[in-house]
């Protein structure tokens, strides 16, 4: 099939394919584009992904700047631990419906998200929970990605017993559901220190296997590529082959699934907190807030809606972001080569079946 670009300035009067190609090369005036640059361009033109990126940035900036983080003070006047007088049954003062539609006009008010039963400002509470969820998501994403990439790459490159162990560990997750293992480990983490970072590290320890399988599959096919053979033949060290030639070319799979891992981790944390094996008071997270107030649904629905909506917004944005990245890394027009597409927790694909 022709892929030639028959512009007006097509080379004329040539009678050899080699000449035509050389003439074309001489005519390219655009700047050289690296793979990363091409992927970035494609990503930027992916609308849902760009919208999601903006949503994520807004949520993150809000969560960290409003109530402050660590030593940095925030601009929101209230904090999440001071109880106060419950005003108007704790109803949210936020209103977005303009007066001419029968609403109360645009107004933020004292407690935009309302107040909880002891009069704490719910906006501050939710922002605090959001911070924790984002931290957990990012830490779990990082831990799982680093572990999954290194273990996957090593087992794909060396095969043999490393590979055997990885496959058995993955089998383990068929028998013990991820949530169950995470719950047990979460409880252990809670029993020892109870800090959010410990929980995140522990969750990272159980969520890397999916990515490891994917990276392994990718490496298995990449290591048969001739540029890898060429690198080995010229005497490159194994570490150079893995880190310079193999892993950079699996970046697509890694980045895409890292985003899915973040979304998965946020949901997993919320589920664990709901069951009582995740974040525990006095720490707070969105999952914990929902769990605390699920019975308030009929009387004070805002206590239930806000944290839930924010979890959905974060997870949805991250998932769309991952989808955009996947499309950017895996343009359909590249052609016949079969691509692995994976989703949350990177479930296995056909090629990996032994």
């Amino acid at each position, binding site marked *: 099939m022709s892929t030639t670009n028959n512009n007006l300035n097509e080379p004329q009067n040539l009678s050899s394919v080699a000449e035509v190609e050389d003439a074309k090369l001489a005519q390219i005036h655009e700047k050289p584009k690296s793979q990363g640059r091409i992927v970035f361009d494609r990503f930027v033109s992916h609308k849902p992904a760009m919208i999601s990126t903006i949503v994520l940035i807004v949520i993150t900036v809000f969560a960290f700047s409003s109530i402050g983080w660590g030593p940095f003070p925030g601009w929101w006047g209230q904090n999440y631990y001071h109880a106060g007088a419950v005003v108007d049954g704790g109803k949210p003062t936020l209103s977005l419906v303009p007066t001419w539609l029968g609403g109360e006009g645009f107004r933020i008010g004292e407690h935009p998200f309302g107040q909880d039963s002891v009069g704490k400002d719910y906006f501050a509470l939710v922002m605090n929970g959001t911070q924790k969820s984002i931290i957990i998501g990012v830490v779990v994403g990082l831990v799982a990605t680093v572990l999954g990439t290194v273990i996957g790459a090593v087992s794909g490159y060396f095969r043999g017993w490393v590979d055997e162990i990885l496959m*058995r560990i993955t*089998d*383990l*997750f*068929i*028998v*013990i*559901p*991820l*949530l*169950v*293992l995470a*719950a*047990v*480990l979460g*409880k*252990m983490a809670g*029993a020892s220190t109870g800090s959010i970072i410990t929980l995140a590290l522990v969750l990272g320890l159980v969520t890397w296997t999916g990515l490891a399988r994917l990276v392994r599959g990718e490496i298995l096919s990449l290591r048969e590529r001739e540029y890898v053979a060429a690198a080995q033949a010229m005497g490159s060290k194994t570490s150079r082959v893995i880190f310079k030639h193999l892993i950079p070319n699996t970046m697509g799979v890694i980045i895409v699934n890292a985003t899915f891992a973040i*979304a998965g981790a946020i*949901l997993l944390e*919320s*589920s664990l907190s*709901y*069951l*009582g*094996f995740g974040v525990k008071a006095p720490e707070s997270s969105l*999952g914990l807030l*929902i*769990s605390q107030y*699920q019975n308030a*649904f*009929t009387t004070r629905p805002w206590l*239930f809606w806000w944290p*839930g909506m924010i*979890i*959905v917004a974060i*997870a*949805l944005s*991250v*998932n*769309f972001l991952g*989808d955009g990245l996947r499309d950017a890394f895996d343009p359909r027009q590249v052609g*016949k080569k*079969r*691509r692995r*597409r994976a*989703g*949350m*927790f990177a*479930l*296995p*694909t*056909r090629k*990996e*079946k032994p």
Partner: protein
Amino acid sequence: MWKFIAKRLGSALAVLFAASLLLYVLVINSGDPLKDLRESNADNREYLMAQRVEYMNLDAPWYGRYWDWLTGASKCLIGQCDLGRNINGVEVSGLLANAASSTLRLVVLATVIAAVLGIAIGVLTAIRQYSGLDYIVTFLTFLFFSLPVFWAAVLLKEYLAISYNDWLADPQISVGTSIAIGIVVGLVLQMFLGGSLKRRGITFFASAVFVPLVLQYSLWLNFYRYPQMGPAIIIVLTALLALSATAMSVGLKEKRVLYPALITVVLVLAMYYATFYMLLEPNGWILFFGLVLAVVIPAAIGRFMGGRLRKAAMSVSIITGVAGAALTIIDHLFRAWPRFLDVKGRPIATIGSSTANLEGGFWDHFLDNGTQLLMPTILLAVISLASYSRYTRSSMLEVQRQDYIRTARSKGLSERTVIFRHAFRNAMIPIATIAAFDFAGLIGGAVITERVFGWKGMGEMFATGLDHVDPAPVMAFFLVTGTAAILFNLLADIVYALLDPRIRV
């Protein structure tokens, strides 16, 4: 093939063993089982502590306790399970039976629904890549991926179950609402059925007019409290299905397929009257036997009358027969509904896996179990359906780019044959693998769902067990779900081998 299965089973058992060891060690180290007693100031504290130490055998080293559990659990192979005692000294084996049956019912049903619907939607969106339907389904799957299960469960409970029950007390749909429903149904239908702009338009207008009329008519009949169908409607529906299945497979001109299908329709009517009194108060075996008959008899008719088209004749007849049987069952369910409403006024339950002390016959219990299962099943199925449809879609798209699809097209095969005979089977190969992981995910999901809907199932057993650092219930949970997962995985492996001759021969 048998060797293959034996090998898989062997390695699965090894994994099961390793996983049990890991889980046991983790659970007993996840906290202090005596914590609540240590903090209590009851008079008989010392006694209670000693009692619990004895129940849980806390004096023994961890490997001793694990060994006890393992020997007890391995007796399950000879039918004498001894899964130890929980923190209160109750035999876990006794608690298990009820919990296991309700959880497995939930998980298996959700898996089947999710797989069937998810794969169907996946195929449809792959065929219509980049259509409006594709975009909407894509958005919905991402939404379902992003929903915290328990949060969605509360919403479902509130908006679906409770409002339906409220509505059913006095079913009313205003004219405006029914027109709106008609328009929505029309929009959705035209998107699913597709076709040219004209065909879509006809679909839309037909359903936008038809649906409101049906809604109002059914209200007039008080259908929602006193539903009825009767043999006439059954026969019309079955005949319509027989005709359209024939038309879609070989065309109505083909008598060798049409006649067996129509004979099956007549048999359905005959069976309806023949079994009427038996089905007023049946049992599970009768229903099962009926289903077998509904497959075997039409298959035989199709085989004898189909000639060279016997494959098509058999499948069309079987579809007709099974549909007729299903409609017969629905007819009986309709008959039982008013009486069921009398015993259970708010049918769609949000708590528990069955209503305690329910009076009534087979159908009442059937409906009760069904209505109790409805909410959690919808929830689990919807979330898992999203991943099935997503994987099927990408797998189908992948397969459609293969050379052999081009070969099939170059033979002059119709698009439907290309998709279902050539593409679909190849696309299902990776899905078989994913199903195994998905099943494990659903069991995890069931833990949460049971908490939300207040089921006394396996998930609850696990959650409370873990909370009390009580290994026996946790391990019992693991034993059941792990075995189920292995069996399911084995099933997936067999399907995989059936689909792919390359690993079979």
